[in-house]
């Protein structure tokens, strides 16, 4: 890995670390949320940006992690670290099973199949309202979120601690993403996106690579969902809805698909946009919609995608 790539990504992580010392309480909470959801977007980008597979159903993986973690601590009596592992394992299992089915389809059919699975999962959350508490959601009590790590008591209700945990997860996700996209797997995924037929005729097992991308992406989503539930003490059905399948797509498009930092930037900007717009209108989503249309018209490669194309060819 070249030095400037390490330096750039290190600088971003360092900047996020330093931000907590100048940001207001409200900003700290918002940035924590952005960092948790950016992990979701990073994973989405592996499948969408690099492998070129557009899923409209990633909320089901996000919700898998969300509910596995929330139910894990409230019903199964798991400690927080155990709940993270449990959620990740559930995410891997669900994405392998769904991937094996959904990847039999391509193009628009793949979008429809993932959308359908996700809607079925959303309806299942509502149907099993006794367990999931449906719309109302599961609220995790503070004592269920306290745990000890290496002998120290950890209280996830502490906003500064929460910020740094989210940052550590995000940093891990960025590094993992970099490693994946710069590995042989990452290059073969790009080859599949660019010309699937040709890639198969060069002797690559295209189905296996697509499944790897799908499971990586689903696992990132599940981990992000688990972090969301445990850090913000809440899991509700809205987080399993179609809107949460569309969000990572928008964040990725805004920041730049197939760039490692694009999804992180996109998630942050979209939050700022909504925040800014809701300051003077209740129709903030309309504002976001206009911005997205302008983006697609003038910067179809997203912000970092355009920057890479024009100036920084080395950007991963």
């Amino acid at each position: 890995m070249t030095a400037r790539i390490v330096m750039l990504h290190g600088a971003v992580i360092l900047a996020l670390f330093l931000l907590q010392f100048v940001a207001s309480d409200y900003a700290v909470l918002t940035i924590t949320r952005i960092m948790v959801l950016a992990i979701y977007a990073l994973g989405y980008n592996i499948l969408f940006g690099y492998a070129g597979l557009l899923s409209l159903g990633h909320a089901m993986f996000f919700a898998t992690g969300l509910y596995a973690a929330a139910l894990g601590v409230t019903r199964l009596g798991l400690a927080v670290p155990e709940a993270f592992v449990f959620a990740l394992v559930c995410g891997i299992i669900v994405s392998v099973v769904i991937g094996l089915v959904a990847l039999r389809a391509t193009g628009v059919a793949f979008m429809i199949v993932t959308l359908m699975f996700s809607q079925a999962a959303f309806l299942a959350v509502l149907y099993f309202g006794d367990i999931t508490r449906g719309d109302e959601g599961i609220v995790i009590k503070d004592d269920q979120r306290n745990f000890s790590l290496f002998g120290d008591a950890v209280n996830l209700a502490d906003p500064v601690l929460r910020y740094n945990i989210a940052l550590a997860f995000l940093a891990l996700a960025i590094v993992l993403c970099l490693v994946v996209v710069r590995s042989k797997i990452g290059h073969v995924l790009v080859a599949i996106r660019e010309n699937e037929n040709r890639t198969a005729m060069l002797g690559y097992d295209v189905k296996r690579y697509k499944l790897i991308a799908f499971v990586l992406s689903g696992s990132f989503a599940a981990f992000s969902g688990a972090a969301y539930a445990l850090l913000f003490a809440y899991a509700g059905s809205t987080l399993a809805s179609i809107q949460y399948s569309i969000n990572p797509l928008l964040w990725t498009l805004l920041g730049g698909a197939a760039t490692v930092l694009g999804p992180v930037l996109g998630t942050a900007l979209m939050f700022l946009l909504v925040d800014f717009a809701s300051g003077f209108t209740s129709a903030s989503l309309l504002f976001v919609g206009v911005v997205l249309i302008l983006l697609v018209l003038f910067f179809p490669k997203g912000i970092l995608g355009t920057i890479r194309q024009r100036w920084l060819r080395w950007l991963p």
Partner: protein
Amino acid sequence: MTVLLETRGLSKNFGGLKAVSDVNFRIERGEVRAVIGPNGAGKTTFVSLISGRIAPSAGTILFEGADVTALPAFRRVQRGIAYTFQITSIYANLSVAENVALAAHQPGGKASLYPLERVGLADRASQIAGTLAYGHQRLLEVAMGLALKPKLLILDEPTQGLSDAEIDNFITLVREVAKNATVLLIEHNMPLVMELAHRITVLDRGMILADGTPEDIRANAAVQAAYLGTG
């Protein structure tokens, strides 16, 4: 010489159309074999069956003595059957070097540029493949086939759209490739076929019409009627 590839009773029907019908075919190691025939004779279908891009309706395909009929295309490539597309199929948005690196299964790494040197594209390694001239894209396609280090290299109309000078280079190239690989060539350019091929198989309406040395084929009356013109 030993048999590298053999087909037995190979057939492919598209609805009522018998595109390939009961073809028994053998190619020996080290051979340059041309498959010729009029348009619609089933040449591309035939090599698509061998490469595994489409599944046969009946028959078996043996490669190095093993039955590969049920193997998906990518497994056959791994065993050494490389296919270059009739319609250029390169990674238009990636660099020329990355195209070859992907073929060599070393993407992103420092793959050898030797295949590019062999086709004369080494000086264009960093160029984006889609910006190459058409003839150069065809050569890149061949270079990707070489980078796979195949035992059997299938070239589907490789000289289509090439200039005369490029075709001369191409003949030299195929001769050199044939030193350590077997070449199955589908080609319309008869002078080129006559010059390059050790043996020629003539397909007509999905069946083998004739099979022999270039001299045999030139002298064969049935072939002349079907393809070369009786005049």
